[in-house]
């Protein structure tokens, strides 16, 4: 019984991890930027949902597109006017820049919202149903479904839309893409905007189950990192598989090896993947 409950718990939380990892994976895979401000973007999305909920009682599920659009615009500007200047610099530079950005955003949030822990409690929060001995929370189930929907939309968009295909072309060979008329600086900003927008959407989803404070996004950066490596970089399916696998691993690790070691279990698996299959579960070999 505990086994099934843990499996369900793992998949449900894995859905959140997948959306968290999706934006991070796009930015890393396509632009080769490990965005340490990803957690700060998640926090911004969560606070967007909070402000809308506290002021106008907007249901967080309805805030998802708002969070996405706001963060997309923010991310687009950040890339265009800040990161673009160092995008071809060594990895360490973008590392430092996004880390500094993260500190800046978190501390501005601290000034505006203070360190108080906040939360969103909807009329349906905590509502659940049982199948046999397995209890499932409605909020978490809907969160998973929305996460799957977002992933599907992203996949379709990237593989069939003109911009989506240009982005993938740019990831494959930036010079050739440029020669065929792809506007790289604009597309880079679009990709970074998408990464931020997805973080914003993830933040809104997270606000339904977690409490909010300005540094809430930090642990999710590591989660995103692990999911990307597990699933394979730069693809939508990779982030999804990575998120779900990580969620289930953590859940089982916590139950059968020790809650104190739940992170350790997932990280050991990460190491094993890096040794045995360095391109990730779904990753392809690049020439």
């Amino acid at each position: 019984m505990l086994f099934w409950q843990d499996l369900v718990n793992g998949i449900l939380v894995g859905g959140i991890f997948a959306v968290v990892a999706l934006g991070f994976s796009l930015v890393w895979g396509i632009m080769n930027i490990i965005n340490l401000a990803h957690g700060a973007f998640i926090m911004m999305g969560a606070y967007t949902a909070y402000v809308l909920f506290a002021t106008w009682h907007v249901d967080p599920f309805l805030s998802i597109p708002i969070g996405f659009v706001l963060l997309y615009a923010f991310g687009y500007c950040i890339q265009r006017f800040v990161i673009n200047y160092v995008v071809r610099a060594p990895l360490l530079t973008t590392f430092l820049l996004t880390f500094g950005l993260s500190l800046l955003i978190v501390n501005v949030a601290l000034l505006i919202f203070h360190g108080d822990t906040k939360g969103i409690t909807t009329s349906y929060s905590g509502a659940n149903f049982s199948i046999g001995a397995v209890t499932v929370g409605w909020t978490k189930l809907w969160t998973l479904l929305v996460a799957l929907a977002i992933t599907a939309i992203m996949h379709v968009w990237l593989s069939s839309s003109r911009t989506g295909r240009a982005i993938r072309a740019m990831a494959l060979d930036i010079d050739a893409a440029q020669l065929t008329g792809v506007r790289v600086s604009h597309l880079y900003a679009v990709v970074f905007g998408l990464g931020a927008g997805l973080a914003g959407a993830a933040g809104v989803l997270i606000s339904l189950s977690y409490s909010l404070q300005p540094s809430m996004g930090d642990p999710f950066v590591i989660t995103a990192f692990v999911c990307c490596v597990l699933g394979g970089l730069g693809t939508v399916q990779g982030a999804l598989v990575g998120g779900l696998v990580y969620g289930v691993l953590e859940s089982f690790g916590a139950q059968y090896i020790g809650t104190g070691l739940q992170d350790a279990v997932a990280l050991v698996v990460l190491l094993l993947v890096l040794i045995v299959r360095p391109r990730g579960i779904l990753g392809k070999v690049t020439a």
Partner: protein
Amino acid sequence: MGCIRVGALFALIVAGALALTTAVPAPARADDSTIVFGAALAATGSNAREGALTKAGYDFWKDYVNAHGGMKVGGKTYKVDIKYYDDESNPQTAARLVERLVSEDHVNFILGPYGSANSATAAAAVERLKVPMVEGNGAAASIFSQGYKYTFAVLAPGFKYLQGILEMARTLKPAPKTVAISTANDTFSVEVGQGAADYATAHGMQVVYQNKYPADTTDVSAIVSAIKATNADIVLNGGHLDEALLLQRTFKEQDVNAKIFGYSVGPDTPDFRKTLGKDADWVFGGTQWSPTAKYQGAPGFIGDSKVYAAQFQKKYGYIPEYHNAESTAACLAFMYAIEKAGTLDPQKVRDALQNLDVVTFYGILKFDSRGINVYKPMAVNQIQHGQLMTVWPLGVQNAKPMYPTPAWSAR
């Protein structure tokens, strides 16, 4: 080109860092008519909220004393002042700033940082510097097992935090028999959990679940499903506000029905009630102090909890919680000890602290040889219809415990 840009970026970062460190306002130096206390307190980082509560507690005392003519030490009257630095919630930074407060800013005494980890590193620093520190926000007894002579804590030690709830539970009918305990994996929380487990075992209750989780965990569902499987009567947590919120939500979501839900940190803070709304009802919490506590304090400061709470609320706009009160109490320990010593000599003030025995609005201030206030009991609060009531111990309570907690489906 890349290299030049990296160089320029580094130069910018270094320049920025320098500008930050030099932009700190000129230190309030100890002069002939002012006693200066120093404190490294979190203004940013994960403890920013608690750091602000601590600061309010310190400042309340400072303003009160200055408004009432200052402190009399050896026939001379002094004003008091407190110099603050931001330790960024980082233990190493706290220690470094304490060194700076003493050796560069020449403060007379140190008031503690927020949190057990930061208090531990600060304690090591004051030991080296031989300057006494009184703290009100580091409750891990492990801080005091190092043989330190210069650190004193006004609060009851960690292992007592949840014992009050168990003590109270033993008087309730039908008597709860089984206990499940989860704790964050940090010094203080582990001590809280172990203290509860030891007490439960010693008093005929059965500990059916005891486990640790990483302190900044984002997922507690495995713990909750395991606790549900044990069907424990009492479900306790020793941790922090974030996890208390996460656990309480997940207990509801997974339909875990215990007779008592108790937390070491959480129910006391207004955030807990605001965030959870009705789902916060029936929850118990251990507390160092509550505004209804009935102590008769010594002269020199407000002696009554109700009056303290009222004046504090007038000044800061919110009802003080125990973080505020224990911070004020740390200042009071210094005040009574310095007045008794009749000098500002660090060594003599340390000795006076060691021999202190005074009752304040916060309770008794008296330290054992390690510097812990083992003489102070913990109270128990319960959230009843959205209000925080004190339900234990009997002499202090302003409401009866509501028991047993109904099932989630019956609320």
